[in-house]
Structure formats: structure tokens, C-alpha cells
């Protein structure tokens, strides 16, 4: 038996024993998502138990080194773990920007001391992180940010305002781009700073979106004092870290395009429900059917592209700018999917709330509106196309 097979057997046994029953049921809605953090909310004690067990094994971030709270798994082992989790239909133990965005750049750029300090609580879901990037005047032109951090003794004093801070009102800490040198060229004056959202002078106000949800905040900093050892990488070296982190963010967002998790009903099923026709026979609307089919095919092609990218990365041929392709195409696909979904449901896909619409139908409406932001957040589609044109295609300025 190969080592990998042994690992699979071991993992399977451990999961059979340790994955609580509830965790093996599909996620029903946002309330089933576990974000962790100091004020973690669990809809059911099994969620907490699952996070603790997975966190203790480091399997919330399986490929991170063990000394930083990770699982220390190889890429192959990590894939086996994912397969075994999928086999049992296990829910993710934790959804965390600490894992998807901050962790990877800390591993790459932080000091040993910083890694040991910040990574393990991320892995265990003890600290919930938010991202302080965009500002009202600095959206696509992210490097135009104005939030200042001035060194005063051993502390930076931060003043300014962020916007689109995801869940700032629910987060414990923030990773934040600040301008430490206002006189340097704009990309060169930026640093990457971590601080506690409970610090004096921090305030977060949720923004209501067109979809009715408020996942983002405006975040205000007034004389917030941050110990200088919470600056990651070099002073004025923040832009490099920022760009790398954006790649991780884009990868995360681009996965939306593959059509949603287990919760999302597929377009063919939606079509059958709303358009009728006999099971196994063509849907009665040939135009909608053509578009469903187009989406299904594109999803296959997108999936193959993701796998190809993983294979290339394993062979050491990863290309950073590829994330822009995934971000652009994935989010545009997701917008296409939600647009099609509401058209399939017709008037029933345009309800806002209340009587006359099922929860799933209201979900179609809200999901459609929410998806419009996918091609804006994490760098607009236009920015991604710029990046591809410049970095990948080498087109001149």
C-alpha cells in the first residue's frame, strides 16, 4: 500500500469517527456558514465541535506547515483529504478570509515571529479577519489610497477611511493597506498593516447593497494606534503584498463561476421546474435551453482550465496573471448564470420578499442582484482585462 493509500485509509477512518452527523448534511443557507472569530455564532453545537476537531488537526488549512497551525499535508494528500471530505458530504469547517487571503501572504512575506503569532489562530478559526483595501476615491485605482499611517514612537497612528470592507462589523482584526510615505510615488508609499478592530478609533458602518444584504462596511479610522511590529514585510513594500493578496482574492471569487455550491439548484433543474415539458425530453423553450447548454459547456471548459492551471502549477509552470483570467471569466459566467436563472423563472424570479414567492425564488432575485458585484469587487472586469493585456499579452501602454 502506498503512503497515499495509507493516508486515505487513515483519513477516512478519522472522518467517519469525527465528522458529526449534522456536518454531513448539505448547507441550507447563509446561517450554516461558520466564520469563527471571537464572537463566533454557531447555529448548532456540531458546527463548533467540527471546527475544533478540524482546527486541532490543522485541516482547515491542510497544506500550511504544522508549526503554523496547518496540516502539513502535501498537495496530493490535500487532494485526498478533499476527496474524502466530499465522499462524506462534509461541510467546510470554516470560511475565512484569514485562510483564503491573508494566510498565504503571511507565509510568503511575514517574519517568523509574525507567522507564529498570527497563523495558528487563523487555522483554528479564533480570529476573524477583514480586508481594508478600497477607499471611496480609490476603487479600480487601488494604489491611489489615502489612509495615512504615521510612525509615532513604536506605534503607527492610522487615520482615514476604507470602503467595501467585507464584514468589518463582525470581524476581529483587519489587514489594511496604509500610506506610510505620502511623498513617494503612489505605489511605493504603501505598507501592509494588521490591527485589532477593537482598537480605539475604529468604526464600521454596514452598507446596504441592491440585493438587500449588507456584507460590506464603510470603515473609519481616527488616530488608531498600531504597534509597529504589526507591519508585514518592508515599510513601503505593501504594494507587492497587496497585489499578491489580490491574486488570492481573485482566485476565491472566480470559483463563483463554476455555478455555486451544493445549495444552488442547477439551471437544467430550474428550467424543468419553470418551463415544464417531459422529463428527459427537450425543454419547451429552445432559446433558454440553448443558453443553459452554453453555460453547462462553459462550466466544463472553465473547470478543465482550473485543473490545467493546477497541473501547471504542480509542474512549476504557474503563471500569476492567470488569476485575472479566472476572476474575469468566472465572475462574468456567474453573472450570466444568475441572469439566466431569473429569466427562466420569469415573474417568479423577480420577487423581492413576502407572499407569492418561495424562499428559493427570492434567492434567485437576490442572487442575481448580488452577482452584479462579482465583476466589481476584487478588481473590476475592466481591471482584469487590463492586467491580462499587459502582463500576459504584453500589449504596449
Amino acid at each position, binding site marked *: 500500500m502506498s503512503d497515499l493509500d495509507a493516508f486515505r485509509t487513515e483519513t477516512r477512518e478519522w472522518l467517519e469517527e469525527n465528522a458529526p452527523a449534522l456536518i454531513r448534511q448539505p448547507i441550507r443557507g447563509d446561517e450554516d456558514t461558520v466564520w469563527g472569530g471571537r464572537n463566533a455564532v454557531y447555529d448548532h453545537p456540531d458546527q463548533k465541535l467540527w471546527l475544533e476537531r478540524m482546527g486541532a488537526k490543522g485541516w482547515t488549512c491542510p497544506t500550511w506547515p504544522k508549526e503554523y497551525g496547518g496540516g502539513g499535508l502535501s498537495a496530493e494528500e490535500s487532494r485526498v483529504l478533499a476527496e474524502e471530505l466530499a465522499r462524506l458530504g462534509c461541510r467546510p469547517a470554516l470560511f475565512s478570509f484569514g485562510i483564503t487571503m491573508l494566510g498565504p501572504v503571511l507565509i510568503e512575506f511575514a517574519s517568523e515571529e509574525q507567522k507564529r503569532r498570527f497563523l495558528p489562530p487563523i487555522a483554528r478559526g479564533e480570529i476573524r479577519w477583514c480586508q481594508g483595501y*478600497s477607499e471611496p*476615491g*480609490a*476603487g*479600480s*485605482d487601488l494604489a*491611489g489610497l489615502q489612509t495615512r499611517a504615521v510612525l509615532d514612537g513604536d506605534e503607527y497612528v492610522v487615520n482615514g477611511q476604507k*470602503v*467595501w470592507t467585507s464584514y468589518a462589523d463582525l470581524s476581529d482584526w483587519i489587514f489594511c493597506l496604509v500610506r506610510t510615505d505620502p511623498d513617494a510615488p503612489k505605489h511605493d508609499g504603501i505598507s501592509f498593516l494588521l490591527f485589532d478592530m477593537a482598537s480605539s478609533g475604529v468604526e464600521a458602518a454596514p*452598507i*446596504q*447593497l*441592491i440585493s*438587500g444584504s449588507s456584507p460590506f462596511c464603510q470603515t473609519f479610522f481616527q488616530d488608531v494606534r498600531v504597534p509597529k511590529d504589526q507591519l508585514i514585510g518592508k515599510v513601503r513594500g505593501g504594494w507587492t503584498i497587496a497585489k499578491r493578496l489580490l491574486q488570492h482574492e481573485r482566485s476565491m471569487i472566480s470559483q463563483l463561476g463554476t455555478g455555486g455550491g451544493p445549495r444552488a439548484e442547477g439551471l437544467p433543474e430550474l428550467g424543468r421546474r*419553470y*418551463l415544464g415539458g417531459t422529463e428527459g425530453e427537450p425543454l419547451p*423553450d429552445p*432559446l*433558454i435551453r440553448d443558453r443553459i447548454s452554453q453555460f453547462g459547456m462553459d462550466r466544463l471548459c472553465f473547470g478543465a482550465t482550473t485543473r490545467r492551471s493546477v497541473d501547471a502549477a504542480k509542474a512549476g509552470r504557474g503563471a500569476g496573471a492567470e488569476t485575472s483570467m479566472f476572476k474575469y471569466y468566472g465572475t462574468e459566467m456567474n453573472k450570466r448564470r444568475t441572469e439566466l436563472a*431569473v*429569466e427562466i*423563472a*420569469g*415573474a*417568479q*424570479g*423577480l*420577487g*423581492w*420578499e*413576502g*407572499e*407569492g*414567492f418561495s424562499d428559493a425564488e427570492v434567492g434567485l*432575485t437576490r442572487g*442575481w*442582484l448580488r452577482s*452584479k*458585484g462579482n*465583476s*466589481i*469587487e476584487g478588481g*473590476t*472586469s*475592466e481591471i482584469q*482585462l487590463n492586467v491580462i493585456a499587459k502582463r500576459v499579452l504584453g500589449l504596449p501602454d
Partner: protein
Amino acid sequence: MSLILSEEQEFLRDTVREFVQENAPVTALRALRDSQDPDGFSRELWKEMAELGWVGAALPEDLGGAGLGFAELGIVLEECGRTLAASPYLSTAVLGASALELAGTDAQKKELIPEICSGERVWALAFQEGGQFAPFECATVAESAGDGFRLSGEKLFVLDGHVADTLIVTARSAGGSSDREGIRLFLVDPKAAGVEITRTLMVDSRNAARIRFDAVEVDRSAALGQVGTGAATLDAVLDRAAICLSAEMLGSTQEVFERTLQYLKDRQQFGKPIGSFQALKHRAANLFCEVELSKSIVLDALRALDEGRPGLSLIASSCKARCSDTFVLAANEGVQMFGGIGMTDEEEVGLFLKRAKVAAHCFGDGAYHRNRFAALSGY
């Protein structure tokens, strides 16, 4: 008829614009939404517009109308579209009035149309039964019962259904549920026994309702129009509705396009206005062309209505398909070009997006009308 506005029409447009911008700006729709207004529109304002002669713009003077035409009604609706003004225009002044005008007896017209023109009564046409727009799919039945009829069935997406004083209901007295033949129109009192009305809150914050008819008894006189003419009447009413809604959508489309253009000029990124980036310029220029074509076909369709031009249905379908698609495109481009701010409930561009999708669906979307255009053209 000329495809540009006459001086009188320009004057009307300016007057309506001033009135609507003053009395029913986009913030008014927001206020109706946020206060969960039970009517979903301002009755007072509706009365005022009726007094100004705008509700009955296309209706004859002897029935209380202004004796103008659809060209003029279209101007009013276009301006209402600019501010997303909520009112019973479509349900009452278009659907209700058209059904009466096209199928009513002289007595019915004389009695009922003046009350539309004066803004006293709100009407609703209940015809859609499924999520998809398919006006001749009608499972609601009208059985003979004594001297009258007994209606049973369920309708959804009935515009202004929860505030209507009178309902016009399509029901079938013969034929299978997909036949055009056998459909008739009936006037139903919303307070009649067996009528159950549920307001449905749509994403565009405009009025709609789901209505159940559970063995509702109506008089013989409640039948509107002759046996065998129901489908033709419905077709003609929906042609008018498609064109009038297109006029409204045109106003909304132009507004969201102009706001987007302004934003492109104002918003600075990378040290210059984002409208100086060629990729956005080209998209804006392409959108301009789509909007111009929409403008032309709306003007032409309104005049075709006034002229009683042959082939009207082809024009109506072209008009609705284009205006649906262009409005959705303009609204999507608007949100994307406004960027993050466009995603906030606070910024009004999102309200245009919401309205675009509902209006595109209402009375048939692009695909529906392309199918109809082809069928009418014999291919």
C-alpha cells in the same frame, strides 16, 4: 407622421418633465418602498395628472379624454420612466382603457372611460398565469352559471391588482388551456365573493398582485366583448401595452444612460476621468446607438398606433423587444460603470436595474417578441 416632436409635443414634454421631476422623482419611489406604502403609488398625484389631462391623453374628448394621441401619451410615459414614477398608467390608462375602448359597448365606454380619465378608478388586467409571459395560456375557466358565469382560476403578476377598483379577467369559456379560441374577458369586482387578492412585492417596488378566483359569480353583463373576440382583443390591448411600456422604458433607458455618461465624466481614477478610457468609450458609444434605435422605434410605434397602421403588431414586437434588451443592457452597463457605488442601495442606478428586468419581462421579453415577430411574418 414625422418622427420628431412637434412644437406642441415639445411643450408637453417639457411640462411633464418639470412636473414629474418635481413631484415624482426617483426618491418618491424609494419613499413608497421604504414606508411600505399600502397603495404603492400616490393617489393624489394620480388625480393631479388626470386633471392635467395626461391620463386620458389618448382617449377621445367625449369620453373625458384629451383627444390627443398615443404620441402624446408616449411622451408622458417616457418622462415618467425617467424618474421610475410609480402610477397606475399601464394598468388603468393603457390596459383598462384599451380593453374598454376596443371591446366595450358604447354604454360601457360612456360609463367607465370618463372615470379613468378623471383618475377616479384604478383598473387591472389579470391575464398572466405562470412565471413566463404567455397570454394565451389560460387555465382560468368561466362556466355558465344561471344567467351569468362562474370564474375559477389563479392569476399572477397582475399590475396594480391589489389597488384596482375593477378587474378585467381573462377566462376561458371553451377550448383547451393553450388555445387562443375560447378566451373571453370579464369585468370582476375585486370585492366579490371568492376573489382573493395577495399583493406581491416585486424587485422593482412597483405594484403587482396574485389573485385567486374561487367560483366567483358574475353577471352576464360582466362579459366584455363578443364571444370569439377575446383573443383578438387581448392581442390588440397587449400591442398597445407593449408600445406604451416601451415608451416608459425608453425614458428610463435614456436616464440611466445619461447618468452613466455623467459619471464617466466625473469619476476620477488613475488621475483622469474614467470616461477617458477607450474601452468604456466604445461601450458607451455602442450603447448610444442602441438607445438611438430604441428612440426611433418607440416614436414610430406610437405614430403607428395613432395612424392605425397595418402591420402594427410587427412594430409593437420590434419595439418591445428592442426596448427590453436595451434597457437591460443600459442598466447593467450603468451598474458596472458606477462600480462599487452602483452596487449600493443608496445610489439610484440599482433601482433602474431592478426596474429594467421587471419591465423587460412585463408584456413579453425580447425572446418572446422575436418569436412572435417570426410567427407574424410567416416563418
